[in-house]
């Protein structure tokens, strides 16, 4: 095996690092916690201006999955707000793969310039893991589609230009078959957005669709082919767009505090820290493996599930022991005097629980591994 990045990728990584140094200032990292929006427009624009988003987007320009992994790993390790960028790039790749020429021309430039964000309307109040059962309806009316229903957890809807929306178009077909995906502007009349505040500061949304009218130009992929479009979305995510090394900045913040407060010489703390560092290495190697499989022309879906299960629990372990070790200082929030790790210890203890929920829960991922990797009989 070879674990060295090629010289091209090293150059790419160094460019990302220099952009991070300039654009991911403490103020920007802080802003995500006051606005509840995990996105940094100035960073996106810079990456767009330098052609990096186009270069990294699968199917466009170079589209090297190793570079994609490197970019998001660097952003994640630096503690940058990158969620908006990850979603936008992933959906740009889907549009590029399944969209019509007209859709590609209309949508992709706005994303790879770093200007436009995308929000994802899949989950509903009553359907999360059982996504294929969603009820939001799209009905054909002459040349138009009329959409009615509601979505839950439509993160970034308050700032996004675009919405990718999963709807039911045929009630008679089996549940996976009667779905259609739409891609429409968020300013289309009939859409309402209401904030949902979360434990981890991030503000997500409930969204309502009342007689939202769009034409066929908004259908992404085939009519009643929505599940395939959904699968394509997940395939592009591949587990290489961040979300696997969230413990790295936490350990850094914790360590600084622990050294300054004279508690870092405790053998228990040192050992736990060392073990969490092993976890972070393993998490990044598993992520790199997905990227490598994708770069070799494979589809690392299952590997993505495996990586996510491991990486999320590793992060949760780290946030658990760091807070417990910090004691009262681990309860203090950002900007409070004496807060462990400048408040990150407290923050990560609030943020880490979501990681085993969104984008497919840990249980759903374990089902996947059991059935598709171990070949065990379906349990449901």
């Amino acid at each position: 095996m070879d674990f060295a990045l090629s010289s091209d990728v090293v150059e790419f990584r160094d460019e990302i690092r220099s952009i991070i140094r300039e654009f991911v200032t403490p103020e920007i990292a802080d802003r995500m916690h006051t606005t509840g929006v995990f996105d940094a427009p100035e960073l996106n624009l810079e990456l767009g201006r330098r052609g990096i988003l186009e270069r990294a987007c699968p199917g466009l320009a170079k589209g090297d999955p190793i570079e994609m992994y490197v970019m998001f790993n660097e952003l994640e390790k630096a503690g940058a707000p990158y969620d908006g960028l990850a979603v936008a790039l992933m959906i740009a790749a889907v549009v590029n793969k399944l969209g019509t020429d007209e859709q590609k021309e209309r949508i992709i430039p706005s994303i790879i310039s770093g200007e436009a964000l995308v929000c994802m309307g899949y989950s509903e109040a009553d359907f999360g893991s059982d996504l294929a059962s969603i009820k939001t309806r799209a009905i054909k009316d002459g040349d138009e589609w009329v959409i009615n229903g509601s979505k839950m957890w439509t993160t970034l809807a308050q700032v996004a230009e675009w919405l990718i929306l999963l709807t039911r178009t045929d009630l008679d077909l089996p549940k996976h078959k009667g779905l259609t995906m739409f891609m429409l502007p968020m300013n289309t009349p009939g859409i309402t957005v209401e904030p949902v505040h979360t434990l981890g500061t991030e503000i997500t949304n409930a969204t309502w669709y009342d007689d939202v009218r769009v034409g066929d130009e908004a259908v992404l992929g085939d009519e009643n082919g929505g599940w395939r479009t959904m699968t394509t979305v997940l395939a592009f995510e591949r587990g290489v767009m961040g979300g696997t090394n969230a413990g790295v900045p936490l350990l850094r913040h914790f360590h600084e505090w622990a050294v300054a407060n004279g508690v870092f010489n405790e053998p228990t703390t040192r050992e736990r820290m060392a073990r969490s560092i092993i976890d972070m290495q393993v998490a990044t190697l598993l992520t790199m493996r997905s990227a490598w499989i994708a770069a070799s022309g494979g589809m690392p879906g299952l590997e993505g599930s495996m990586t996510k299960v491991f990486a999320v629990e590793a992060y949760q372990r780290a946030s658990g022991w760091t807070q417990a070790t910090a004691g009262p200082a681990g309860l203090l929030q950002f900007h409070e005097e004496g807060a462990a790790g400048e408040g990150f210890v407290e923050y990560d203890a609030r943020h880490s629980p979501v990681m085993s929920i969104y984008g497919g829960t840990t249980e759903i991922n374990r089902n996947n591994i059991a059935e598709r990797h171990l070949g065990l009989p379906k349990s449901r």
Partner: protein
Amino acid sequence: MSVDLGLSPDQESIAELFNGFFSNEAPPAVARAAEPLGFDRELWNKVIELGAPGMGCAVENGGGGASLGDLVVVAETVGRSIAPIPLIDHLAALSVLTDADLVAGEAIAAVAVRPADANGIWSLVPAGAVADVVIGVDGDETIVIRSAPPMSGPRNHGSMPLADRSAREGTRTILGPASLFEVVLDRWKLLTAAALVGIAETAKELGVAYVKEREQFGVPVGSFQAVQHGLADLPVAIDGGRLLTHKAAWALDNVTDGLIDWANNEITDGPTLATMAFLFAADGAIMATDRSLHYHGGYGFAEEYDIQMYYRRARGWSLILGDSTSVGLSLADRLFGTVEG
């Protein structure tokens, strides 16, 4: 140079050769028959024919010139089969020893993984019961001793050929300062990590095969989600351990002045990675054997079933280096520097 996380074609052939060899020559019954000593001379003689003992030595010394990545592949097959031969120890010792009889495998070498005590005794040396040559640290020197192996030792959890050995009696060579031994110990940790990955792999296979067959309530027990989820963690730990072990081998083979920049998760220092791989693979093997044994129900506890042999070796092969806290703290010293005062 660019990321390539697959085995090379050569390594694929090595894996096939050794997996085939061990499944023919060393099915679990062989390990069982070799207990409690944990050594099968006949099997060792056969492995000599494959050229395995000297595989990692330089060609000019009569060896096979294999890379550490290649040796990791071999070590994993040893773990998969729990073959009762001290190949890991021997390959590790031969990172610095070049005696012709060792390269040929006519004599067996062991690694005293912990320094000698004040009386010059290396206690509980893995493979110490059967090795003709032992390498280890005595005081501030790296010592090689040739002396007759006791061919017996204390009965132990892992059915390993353990024995106390003297660092002073026998034909004694001072190889150099104690620091010279580090390369031997790094290689021992690396190859043991790979063997532990192999143990976890077989434990997973045994568990999965069992739960597909065994029925309760009219269905295979492997259709119960609680069982599925317990097993679903195993391939993750195995793949993670394998990747980390191969990264350590790659770094030891290719990287000088590697990074220990844990704050940015950039670690390319071989010795650090070898210890990390050792700790991670040990945890993985312990978890995998634990779960697999448990999902066998009462039969997992029966001596007749093979999983208990893997369960004991997962613990034996890793704990012989020292308690896991001490190993963890030695890693902490490498990562953060030692604690002053």
